[in-house]
């Protein structure tokens, strides 16, 4: 692996490298253990490969949120919106492609009594078209909303609440069948992706590996970006936006750029997620889903990319394991984790440096600053 530049401000150098190397190892291991070696003692069942793939998309989503919250100091409680957008767009592609090339009629056409899909489904059978939209639509939505909010200086908790309200609005809209995206049912029953049947043997490990690759690339790219002058500017915005403005920087554009980038990354995560779970519905737009993303980042440590990735992996792996196993306990564990992090580990697991293990006994630790109201 090429030399990874590190910067203590962006991340702990060693940790950053460890995470990158682990991801690389997984990229090699998953296709091997899930494919040729699946019968061996260490072999991955399709179920586990699928879970790894899903978790990779969650980690990517956490990375996206960390860009804007950890570095820009702007908490979004609406990243589920972008994630779902990516998911819906890829789902539209898969349904339309199945309909046009495979002759599989989507359920929604049956129960809505439609003889054809609405006009805005036009062109979705083409993957390149869908892919461009996956980048474009969330980017545009992020731009419009960010431009409006940042210009009128909506920030801090207001921004958080309004992003949540916006996501909630989107959820209400998508739950309506008349909106034309499958309503409560959402979209399911996908038949093909990129010409390969979704039930094909290599599909599960292939998607999981692809998700891991995208995650690693995004991780390295975000690391580089945050170490660049742009990252420094973003950190300056987080630490004291007013100071920066009074030094002559118009902070609207850097914030907007980071916000749009974050939104697009989240959408890519969503587009990787949906083919792996095989269904999308407006549930992804529920407020608690977006809050959970923030919990991943808070647990791992805001302002540290490896923290976000680790936080997402730990919590979602725990969740996968426990929801099937002791479902009653999961909410208690999640709530407990949040309360412990918030009260005892203000910077998340990054506070768990060996020398800080006694930290809870000390009173005067300084949490990462939050932007001034």
């Amino acid at each position, binding site marked *: 692996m090429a030399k990874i530049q590190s910067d203590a401000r962006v991340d702990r150098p060693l940790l950053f490298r460890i995470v990158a190397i682990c991801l690389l190892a997984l990229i090699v291991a998953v296709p091997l253990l899930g494919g040729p070696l699946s019968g061996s003692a260490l072999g991955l069942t399709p179920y586990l490969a699928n879970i790894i793939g899903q978790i990779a998309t969650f980690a990517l989503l956490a990375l996206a949120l960390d860009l804007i919250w950890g570095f820009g100091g702007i908490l979004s409680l609406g990243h589920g919106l972008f994630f779902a957008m990516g998911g819906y767009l890829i789902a539209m592609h898969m349904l339309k492609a199945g309909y046009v090339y495979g002759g599989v009629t989507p359920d929604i056409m*049956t129960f809505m009594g439609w003889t054809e899909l609405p006009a805005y489904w036009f062109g979705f059978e083409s993957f390149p078209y869908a892919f461009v939209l996956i980048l474009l639509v969330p980017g545009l939505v992020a731009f419009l909303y960010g431009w409006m909010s940042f210009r009128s200086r909506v920030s801090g908790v207001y921004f958080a609440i309004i992003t949540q309200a916006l996501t909630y609005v989107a959820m209400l809209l998508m739950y309506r069948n008349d909106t034309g995206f499958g309503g409560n049912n959402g979209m399911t029953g996908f038949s093909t992706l990129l010409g390969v049947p979704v039930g094909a043997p290599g599909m599960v490990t292939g998607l999981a590996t692809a998700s891991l690759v995208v995650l690693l690339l995004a991780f390295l790219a975000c690391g580089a970006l945050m170490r660049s002058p742009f990252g420094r500017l973003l950190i300056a915005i987080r630490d004291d936006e007013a100071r920066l403005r009074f030094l002559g920087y118009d902070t609207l554009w850097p914030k907007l750029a980071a916000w749009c980038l974050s939104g697009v990354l989240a959408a890519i995560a969503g587009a990787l997620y949906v083919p792996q779970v095989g269904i999308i519905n407006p549930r992804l737009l529920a407020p608690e889903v977006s809050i959970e993303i923030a919990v991943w980042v808070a647990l791992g440590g805001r302002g540290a990319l490896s923290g976000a990735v680790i936080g997402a992996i730990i919590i979602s792996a725990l969740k996968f394991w426990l929801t099937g196993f002791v479902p009653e306990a999961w909410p208690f564990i999640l709530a407990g984790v949040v309360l412990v992090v918030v009260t005892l580990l203000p910077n998340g697991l990054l506070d768990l440096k060996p020398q800080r293990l006694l930290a809870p006994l000390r009173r005067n630790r300084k949490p990462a600053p939050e932007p001034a109201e």
Partner: protein
Amino acid sequence: MKRRSFVKGLITASAGSVIASPWVARKAFAAAHSDTVKLGCLFSSSGTMANIEGRLNYVARMAAEELNAKGGVLGKMVEVVTTDPGSDWPLYAQLGRQLIQQEGVAATFGCWTSVSRKSVLPVVEQNDALLYYPLHFEGEENSKNVVYLNSPPSSSVLPAVEYLMSEEGGSAKRFFMLGSDYVWPRTINQQLKGYWASKGIEADAWREEYVPVGHSNFQTLINEIRAFADQPGGQPVVILTVVGNSIPDFFREYVNQGISAFDVPVLGLDALEADFEGLDTTALVGHLNCWAYLQNAPGARNQEFLSAWANYVNANGVPYRPDVAIDPMVSTYDGVHLWALAAEKAGSFDVPAVREASAGLTFACPSGYEISMTAENTYVKRGVFIGSLNESQGFDILWQSPDTPDPVPFSPYMNA
């Protein structure tokens, strides 16, 4: 007790996290219990469906206990693995995958709403597994991987609507369709419109409205229903397809606005005894529902089932009422027994063999009917009841079918 199971859960969770990988623990467990066969349950015990759906987990367990008391199936004890999809449709798919791929269950019993069934469907089809689905539903689906334990509209909704339109049922002429906005109500209403059109009823005799799942404020809609009812054109009825907690909310507002079943009867297609647990039903007497089982079904078989349930609830501290039994409970119960019969007949737990052996099986259902599985698909032939809500939150039987009509998966009225 629920609390105890929670504490147990916490202990298991902390113990489990000591063991590095959960699947190792699971495999060890499975190896130690190789004389068991697993059945999976996909019913929510949290979220908007929890109130009614959660009890099906316990019925499946009860039925499994009955099987085990008689020595199990093919010499193996039946173990029921339950999950909690939390009324979150995509989670049904996720947990379904876990049950089938990870737990290796022989069959899965699950889903209430059609959304959740549609969500699991690709999973069971891709893994060639069996899903026993205990709800009456909209039809238009015929997967070899789903056993449709309950009735499609042709043998549930249509008889009830015909009854309402008959002289005895009140000669209904105008229809207000109010449903939760998802596949089941939408499809049912499509079929009803096709059916009425085929009877020569004009389109201005009906109105169709949808609310989001979980909607609670029916004030405005009930105003609209009243306005609709007061217009000329004959006896109005409401065909109600809202689900979950919206059902009691709807009826509460209905009473408060002073509309009685005499003025505008409501046919609550998803309304069950359990939906009225929190309500005073004296002002609701006379509203209707239709199911393949009602708690007041006559016959010794029903009394047997009811007392078995009451005993099970009391013995195991089940957090549901011992004196309320609803159709999906009975359907789930039937399903477990039908699966056991099929496995015994096939001499194997393999899905293709069980499926093949299922055709033509019969079972004495608590409803009093001898239900049977069709040979040409995986539907179950059942009887139909039309119930009338009484003062004590139950349904009196107004009408019941003379026999078990043939289920018709694809409605001729669908795109009429």
